[in-house]
């Protein structure tokens, strides 16, 4: 900048009276190019993983003095809010919801973010009914039963997207299976939390122009050597160096690219269709709510409760069917959803390829023995779909080959892309943040450089190891399926291949494996 340009300029600068010099400093937005600003931790990505990492660090005594920068290309502003406790207020529910596990909620409470979540827009649920679309074989995941059912059923429960059976029994709030929460509600709560923290510079609406290593070190002397520090180039010729650069920057993580960490995986030929639905039942706020899930040959369809008479739909199906569903007019989409939960699979196929008119549904339903198909007695009817809420996402699986490098840590989707349904990825991202924050605290207490492998290895082996163990666990579960009579039919419709190929299943199993 001004001071770094030329000695002559610098000399004339110092000839100015102090007041003028100060004015120059004030307008000089960046320090000289050769001396980047130093931060202890720079987090790229202001999603739930990055935000909760920062909140967590600032809530631990050994890490709360860290100098942190949070960078996000988007503006991190809280979205408009409805009035307190106004559950079905004027604003419709977002179709991007997550099913937070009790462990995630506990973590969010501990870091002071949960109190900022708009409680009128979250819905806890206490059970999930799961049944097989082919045989009607049924399994209840009622927390009351969990003490009795043995490991196999528990394991099956973990296969269900949107469920959080892995830890429920030993956590507080053991009555809850999980809590539905809009991603936007959670993010807004975390942003509010982070904005109030000292020692955090929030650089939102700021694009990272580049990441490179610091300048070559001088051969002699004792000057600072940043040659192995990541330095981020920001707009306005600003440069910041990170003792630890955290990539919370999503599936296409630039931080991961900078660190040259490969991410491997595959795409499923499947899409997840999401929508916000209106049900015929008006639920009392305090009434216990349930989630429902039916396994169809094309993939599972799930109905997850939102406050009042709303629910979140998560329907995994083939890419072709997904685009067909998105093209339907609202009334026919509603009929298709009702059909998918209620009818024989042959009827569903027929309707989806020929006619999704609601009369068709009524007629077929009248000819169907719903009980024999396993339809739960208290299953609601879908009245309508909230306009504009239908969307779909390709299902894919990616896993970074490592979560850490020298002065690098990856969390959330940057580390692993699990399919976006029902927020299992979000739970994993929160668990990453919690684990990384814990390991940074351990490192600080032992005087470690938090960017060094001595500090980061523990995080990597904690989280990556759990994911990596999954393949082996899946194999064992496969054997269990084969050996026990009860869930065999259910397991058949699920299909072992599907288990092996679906990322979210692995995520669930992983947590199962870790207890």
């Amino acid at each position: 900048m001004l001071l770094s340009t030329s000695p002559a300029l610098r000399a004339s600068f110092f000839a100015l009276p102090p007041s003028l010099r100060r004015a120059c400093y004030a307008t000089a937005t960046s320090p000289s190019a050769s001396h980047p600003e130093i931060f202890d931790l720079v987090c790229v990505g202001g999603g739930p993983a990055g935000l909760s990492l920062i909140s967590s660090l600032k809530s631990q005594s050994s890490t709360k003095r860290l100098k942190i920068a949070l960078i996000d290309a988007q503006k991190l502003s809280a979205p408009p809010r409805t009035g307190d406790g106004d559950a079905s207020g004027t604003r419709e529910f977002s179709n991007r919801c997550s099913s937070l596990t009790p462990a995630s909620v506990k973590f969010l409470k501990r870091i002071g973010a949960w109190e900022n979540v708009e409680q009128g827009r979250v819905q806890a649920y206490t059970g999930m009914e799961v049944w097989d679309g082919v045989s009607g074989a049924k399994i209840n995941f009622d927390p009351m039963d969990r003490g009795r059912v043995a490991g196999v059923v528990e394991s099956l429960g973990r296969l269900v997207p949107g469920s959080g059976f892995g830890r429920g029994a030993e956590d507080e709030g053991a009555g809850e299976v999980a809590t539905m929460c809009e991603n936007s509600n959670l993010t807004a709560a975390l942003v509010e939390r982070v904005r109030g923290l000292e020692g955090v510079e929030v650089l939102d609406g700021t694009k990272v122009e580049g990441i490179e290593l610091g300048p070559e070190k001088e051969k002699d002397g004792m000057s600072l050597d940043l040659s192995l520090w990541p330095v981020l180039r920001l707009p306005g010729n600003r440069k910041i160096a990170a003792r630890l650069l955290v990539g919370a920057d999503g599936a296409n993580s630039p931080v991961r690219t900078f660190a040259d960490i490969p991410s491997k995986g595959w795409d499923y030929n499947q899409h997840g269709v999401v929508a916000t639905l209106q049900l015929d039942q008006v639920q009392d706020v305090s009434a216990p709510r349930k989630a429902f899930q039916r396994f169809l040959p094309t993939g599972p369809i799930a109905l997850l409760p939102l406050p009042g008479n709303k629910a979140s739909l998560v329907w995994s199906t083939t890419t072709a069917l997904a685009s067909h569903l998105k093209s339907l007019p609202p009334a026919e989409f509603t009929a298709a959803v009702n059909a998918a939960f209620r009818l024989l699979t042959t009827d569903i196929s027929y309707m989806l390829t020929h006619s999704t008119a609601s009369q068709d549904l009524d007629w077929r339903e009248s000819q169907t023995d719903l009980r024999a198909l396993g339809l739960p007695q208290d299953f609601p009817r879908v009245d309508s779909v909230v306009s504009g809420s239908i969307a779909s996402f390709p299902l894919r699986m990616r896993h970074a080959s490592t979560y850490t490098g020298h002065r690098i840590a990856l969390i959330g989707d940057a580390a692993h892309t699990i399919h976006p349904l029902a927020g299992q990825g979000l739970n994993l991202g929160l668990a990453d943040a919690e684990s990384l924050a814990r390991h940074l605290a351990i490192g600080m207490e032992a005087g470690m450089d938090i960017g060094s492998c001595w500090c980061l290895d523990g995080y990597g082996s904690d989280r990556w190891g759990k994911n990596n163990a999954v393949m082996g666990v899946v194999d064992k579960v496969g054997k269990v399926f084969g050996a026990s009579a009860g869930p065999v039919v259910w397991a058949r419709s699920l299909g072992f291949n599907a288990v092996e190929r679906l990322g979210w299943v692995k995520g669930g199993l992983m947590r199962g494996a870790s207890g």
Partner: protein
Amino acid sequence: MPTSSPSSILTLPASIRSLIVAQSGLQSAFPRLATAIPRVGQIQTTRNYVTESTTAPQSSVNATEVSHFNTLASEWWDPHGSSRLLHLMNPLRHQFINRCLATHGGENTTQQKYLDIGCGGGIFAESAARLASTASVTAVDPTPEVISVAKQHQRVDPLLLEPGRLTYRNIPIEELPLPNTPSEGFDIVSLFEVIEHIQQPSSFLPNILQHIKPGGWLIGSTIARTSVSWFTTKFMAEQVLRMVPRGTHEWSQYIQPTEMRSWATKEADLDAEGIGWQVMGVVYVPGLGWKEVKGSEGWGNYFFGVRKNTAT
């Protein structure tokens, strides 16, 4: 048994000590996997941690020792080098220091001044200098190359370059000026994996005590001289697994915790009778890392801490 009285062995020169030990029939070795100061090379020596010159009788280091550590210098900060076990052990050092300070309610109450003797590449010195509860760290080592490695590594951390936070000195401890008054001494004087490299601990240790402030602590770690430690440190770590270079350890110079304590008890300045004496045995478990194992101080790696009396 041949070590007639535990404390008297410390007063003997190393050559004699090794003789006694040889007669005792205790040849064996389980590595004290972490070795104090990693050395490279195949130098077969009697080790003495003393200065570059052996002529000064009061100096604690000899030439072969120094050259051994020179060849090791490049490996100090290699995560997979021969210092790996020392890095892994480092958090336990802080844990033990905190435990010692806590016995007298001193934890976090004051900013601690550290003196790290035999600092090597600076593993402990750097970590101590980063702690929020640290006022300053002075780190000394007689080996020029390791100090040079330590200083180069200091450059990569701007925190450690803050004036006065971490000062390395390439001198034997005998050349470090004594404090003008006792209260200007150090709160914590550390001797990690050093004492087993000293030829005459009985003359080396009293000198060090003068650097400790009244109420301060002498903290160290070393290896007990047992068949287990011979097997682990000499045979397994140096010969079989090659986790540390050959010649890293001189088993005959290993010291039992009972010997340390009986020396400390005889020092009038030290409070080694009650809670002023602390010891913690640690064991390296492959796959799990270093773990505290109660009672293991009698046969393997251990930490000791002894407090200097407040009124002297």
